[in-house]
């Protein structure tokens, strides 16, 4: 006896608003459901665990009333590099350029920012040593470094046809090895008691914290200028990608390369433009981490922000404002996961499991936004009402 049902996928001609929001929501719920099964198998009560994660990531109402926003600010701190890398990936993926190399571009940005902070003051002593001068220089240097690191694979792609997935990936490893070499070798702090890491940056290169700013100081915590910069970049990219001719060309190239080519849109120019933009934004992420948090080049930059950026960009459907939201939610998973270790004694890596599950679930669920599932009974003789024989 054969299986009496036949499943077919039928392409949806129009995607209603309900479907485009409902399907991803259900997918995320499915991911949390599977995550819950894994948690139960590991001996942790799922509901309680999820609640502890949410409290760890966002705090509680009683904490907010007391003016304690520590949990939220930690989540925003963690979200900052993810917004940058998510935006960087989103730009490149829009035109189907698979920039897997944001991790390396981020690291290069941090290296450039470190050079500016530690070596530039000695090199140009006449330069006023204030934040108003050094922070913009740092941002420019990091952007150029990240953009350069993205430009090499981009030019290899458009001039030589070299597959960018592998080249950007290889560039990650080269950048990470260079960075490890620098902070353990030539750039190691001579007064660091043998501890691997560069010297501490001079204070005029630090990104100001919210606690030093008017109005924003109610939030307190470690949150710094980097977050503001990330949101500003999202705004700028939204304007470029959605409101300008260049952005339109890039979108068209991504949606239908041949049509775009016949319309006279240059692939070479747009790939280079997008990758410089993408690498530059990723470079800012690196600067924001060293100038905003550790204030030195040390271990812990290569923690996979580039790869998480890919999830963020994908879940955000490559839209700049959505990237900001998704990055904050992803960061909440990280921060909530870390809190689990403290509150319930569970491994923090549960957040990695949940992120992977969410991505796979949303990715697989996406078929139902593009297709309609048609289930038909087979082997039934009676024709449907009104159907011609």
């Amino acid at each position: 006896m054969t299986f009496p049902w036949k499943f077919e996928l039928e392409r949806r001609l129009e995607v209603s608003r309900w479907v485009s929001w409902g399907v991803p929501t259900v997918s995320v719920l499915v991911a949390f459901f599977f995550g819950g099964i894994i948690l139960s198998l590991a001996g942790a009560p799922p509901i309680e665990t999820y609640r502890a994660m949410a409290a760890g990531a966002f705090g509680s109402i009683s904490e907010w009333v007391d003016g304690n926003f520590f949990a939220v600010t930690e989540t925003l701190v963690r979200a900052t590099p993810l917004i940058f890398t998510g935006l960087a990936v989103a730009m490149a993926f829009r035109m189907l350029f698979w920039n897997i190399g944001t991790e390396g571009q981020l690291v290069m940005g941090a290296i450039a920012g470190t050079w500016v902070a530690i070596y530039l003051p000695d090199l140009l002593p006449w330069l006023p040593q204030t934040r108003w001068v050094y922070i913009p220089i740092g941002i420019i240097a990091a952007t150029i470094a990240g953009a350069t690191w993205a430009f090499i694979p981009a030019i290899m792609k458009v001039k030589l046809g070299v597959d960018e997935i592998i080249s950007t990936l290889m560039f990650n490893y080269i950048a990470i090895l260079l960075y490890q070499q620098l902070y353990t070798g030539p750039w190691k702090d001579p007064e660091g008691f043998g501890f691997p890491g560069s010297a501490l940056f001079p204070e005029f290169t630090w990104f100001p914290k919210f606690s030093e700013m008017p109005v924003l100081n109610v939030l307190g915590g470690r949150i710094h200028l980097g977050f503001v910069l990330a949101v500003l970049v999202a705004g700028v990219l939204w304007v470029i990608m959605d409101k300008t001719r260049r952005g339109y060309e890039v979108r068209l190239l991504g949606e239908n390369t041949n049509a775009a080519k016949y319309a006279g849109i240059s692939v070479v120019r747009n790939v280079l433009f997008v990758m410089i933009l993408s690498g530059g934004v990723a470079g800012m992420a690196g600067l924001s981490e060293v100038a905003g948090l550790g204030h030195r080049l040390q271990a812990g930059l290569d923690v996979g922000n580039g790869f998480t950026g890919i999830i963020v960009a994908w879940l955000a459907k490559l839209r700049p404002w959505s990237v900001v939201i998704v990055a904050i939610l992803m960061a909440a998973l990280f921060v909530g996961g870390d809190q689990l270790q403290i509150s319930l004694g569970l491994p923090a890596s549960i957040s990695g499991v949940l992120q992977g599950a969410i991505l796979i679930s949303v990715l697989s669920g996406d078929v139902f936004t593009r297709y309609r599932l048609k289930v038909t009974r087979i082997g039934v003789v009676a024709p449907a009402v009104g159907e011609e024989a």
Partner: protein
Amino acid sequence: MDLDLVTSILAIATFAGASLVLATIGEIFTERVGILNLGVEGMMIMGAVTGFAAAYRTNNVWFGVLIAGIVGGLMALVHAFATITLRADQIVSGLAITLLGTGLASFLGQILGPDGGALVGLTGPKFTKWPIPGLSSLPLVGEGLFNQDPIVYSLFVVVPVSWFFLYKTRPGLYLRAVGESASTSDAVGVDVFRRRYGYTVLGGVMAGIAGSHLSLSYTPGWTENLTGGRGWIVIALVIFATWNPARAVVGAWLFGGVNAIQFRLQAEGTNLPSSILNMSPYILTIVVLVLITRTDKLRQTIGAPAGLGIPYYREERG
């Protein structure tokens, strides 16, 4: 050059390269049938952690290898289901497999130990070397080829058989045909769907076993980030090997050799920064990639399968 040095470098290169060869051949099968699976890193690390856990609990390394293969296969099945049945993007799905794998492996590493504790730092069973009498004392190659563990020896069979299967048998021809043109293969009655599923899962099984070679032999035990990006090297090696199992060995030796030379240099206390040496395989991969894409003739004979990464839906056949 010192003969002993060459002998020992060859021995370490073979040992270090074994997991790369296995996983690379697995990924070659997967890519040859037209599916790009960027989840190798995730499948390898899951193989490493589950293989070690299973071997530790049963005190049987072979059981560890078996579990690692099954787990790798299951991970690949998720990729197959997402990309073949649910038509998800292959690149993003592969990345998702890697993310899920690394997250899950790190999680499992903290709970699969005795009494639900961590696996880190435990000493479990591991493969021992089986020197082949006579052959292992051959000059130069003896140590490298004939004083290894059974997984390395299995490559003496796996590599030629894979090559023969791909190029000299009918199923191998079908496999390559599906990867070149799924619609043409379907038209002549080759089951595209089933073959794509099968070889994707096979690739996962081999990646899982490759991972267990790391945790049960090469660097026995479990530590976070044990695979250290080897899964990504595999993706590069497939290109390096131009989708040919025999050439995968050469590439893996090169990558393994860099490890070996580094060991020696560190032992002898040279000043050459190890990270510069570590960079060389990545730079070399880019060079090879440029060469095979630049030379048209090379691309036609040894280039990527024409249908790599292109999904196939029968009802939308155009």
